[in-house]
């Protein structure tokens, strides 16, 4: 008797099983655990750790009442918009465009430097950024040469310092994406426009940018998602301080769960972050689907 088609199909897909199991246990599992635990009073230690009880929407009501949460949400939005959507994305595009016009030696040396900040382990990048922005660090030395006073950046403007550090750390990704995208724009197209008398800015706005539209969207989504998840940079530079002035959502979730020992409340914060990430993720998948019929 021949093996039924459905069974054969199943056997063929057997090798997918290990990956599916891993994804279910370690990725889907924690996500569902999070939504579940965010309705409990689970603690890090003590009785509520061993035997958490159901508290319904208490944690979410607390979120709305807690003045730190809206602040943290706002800081996260500012952080993502400022350092990813504007900072990394624009600087990456500018770098890629400049590299097409600059001498090969220059663009390869500068490219290597930009990529180095991205390849370094995140904790090392965070230490370097911390030293750079600290009171007697490099930034103040440079400003001192210009005769500008020494601010303590990490205390006075923690978000500015963290955002600049994140631009420094992450721009390489956008730069690489845009270099690859610009590489695929046929030279004949821009040359033809040049023949027709289009100036540099016109060629960029009406020809080059529309042609790499797909890459721009992809890149925007990816840098947004990456920046949404940044923890180490903030943790090493300011640990969310001073007085919550740089507590982005990942830091808030960590602080609530591990420093204040309230896993239930921490997972509520984490759940909000997961939902934001999932919303962006759905849009991203949708865009890619539409791009590839």
């Amino acid at each position, binding site marked *: 008797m021949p093996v039924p088609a459905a069974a054969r199909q199943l056997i063929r897909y057997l090798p997918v099983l290990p990956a599916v199991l891993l994804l279910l246990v370690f990725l889907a599992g924690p996500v569902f655990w999070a939504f579940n635990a965010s309705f409990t009073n689970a603690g890090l230690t003590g009785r509520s750790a061993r035997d958490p009880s159901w508290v319904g929407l208490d944690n979410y009501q607390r979120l709305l009442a807690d003045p730190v949460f809206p602040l943290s949400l706002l800081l996260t939005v500012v952080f993502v918009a400022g350092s990813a959507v504007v900072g990394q994305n624009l600087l990456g595009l500018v770098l890629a465009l400049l590299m097409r016009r600059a001498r090969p030696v220059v663009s390869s040396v500068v490219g290597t430097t930009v990529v180095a900040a991205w390849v370094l382990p995140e904790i090392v*990048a965070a230490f370097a950024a911390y030293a750079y922005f600290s009171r007697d660090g490099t930034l103040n030395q440079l400003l001192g040469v210009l005769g500008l006073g020494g601010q303590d950046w990490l205390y006075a403007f923690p978000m500015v310092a963290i955002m600049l550090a994140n631009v420094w750390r992450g721009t390489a990704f956008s730069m690489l994406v845009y270099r690859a995208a610009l590489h695929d724009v046929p030279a004949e197209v821009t040359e033809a426009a040049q023949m027709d008398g289009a100036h540099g800015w016109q060629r960029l706005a009406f020809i080059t940018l529309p042609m790499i539209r797909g890459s721009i969207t992809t890149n925007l989504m990816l840098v947004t998602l990456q920046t949404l998840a940044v923890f180490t940079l903030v943790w090493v530079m300011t640990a969310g301080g001073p007085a919550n002035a740089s507590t982005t959502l990942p830091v808030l979730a960590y602080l609530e769960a591990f420093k204040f020992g309230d896993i239930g409340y921490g997972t509520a914060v984490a759940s909000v972050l997961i939902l934001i990430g999932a919303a962006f993720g759905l849009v*991203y998948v949708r865009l890619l689907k539409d791009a590839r019929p």
Partner: protein
Amino acid sequence: MTAPARTARPLPAGTAATARPGRRSTPADAVLLLIGVSFLMPLLWLILASLDTRAGHELKFPAAPSLGNFAAIASPELLLRPLWNSAVLSLGTAAVTLVAAVLAAYPLSRYSSRFNRPFMYTILFGTCLPITAIMVPVYGLFVQFELLDSMPATILFMATTALPMAIWMIRNFMDGVPVSLEEAAWVDGASRMTALRTIVLPLMKQGLGVVFIFVFIQAWGNFFVPFVLLLSEARQPAAVSIFSFFGQHGAVAYGQLAAFSMVYSLPVLALYVIVARGGGSSFALSGAVRG
């Protein structure tokens, strides 16, 4: 870096004319160099401080450059054990990821089914989840199943976080290997898995190498995951030990911190150079981004 000094030198005649596309411009060079120097500054501190036994936050040339910092950290329990843990963690993660991703990618690449597209898009969606947001629930899960401070469990978790991207990339590479080559092997009686091992995988060696190295680099540099999941000092990788040793002690020896950072960063810098030399960075990105 000697690059800034070079701008003044005139370019040899003809270089600009033969370069494509368009002209090479000096203003572009200047702006690019300015950005490059800004990016270099924080890295420069790392290098100079590592050679200065009296380093602080400020950027300065060491009065008496020495390798004293490197000598000071060169002890088994300060340097070697954390690096060994990092190596075990990263190699384990990369190996598990690669095996699971190759197995999963094969049917997805070779059979057509209604199941493929939804699966691949779910996988893609998985790459989007912010891993830092999952760490609190993962900690809770690990407590419940008594997996905290377990190296194998941490490896499996880190492999899972790398898996969606790896499956996506490896399937793209596998699609590039023509099926006709395997068909000859099937005729000779080889099984699907034998054909995969002896024909398909050798042909996509470069792609597999790129994925392995990318997963390794990510795992090597990961701080947050081992910071939350590995508690005992004996199991902590360099990323965590460097933080707990230097970050939490009052009087910080910045020179030693920089020296440790240099040693710890070296492997990933070297690996990146290997990938980039082979044209791998844009290669891998095209596998990752374009889908």
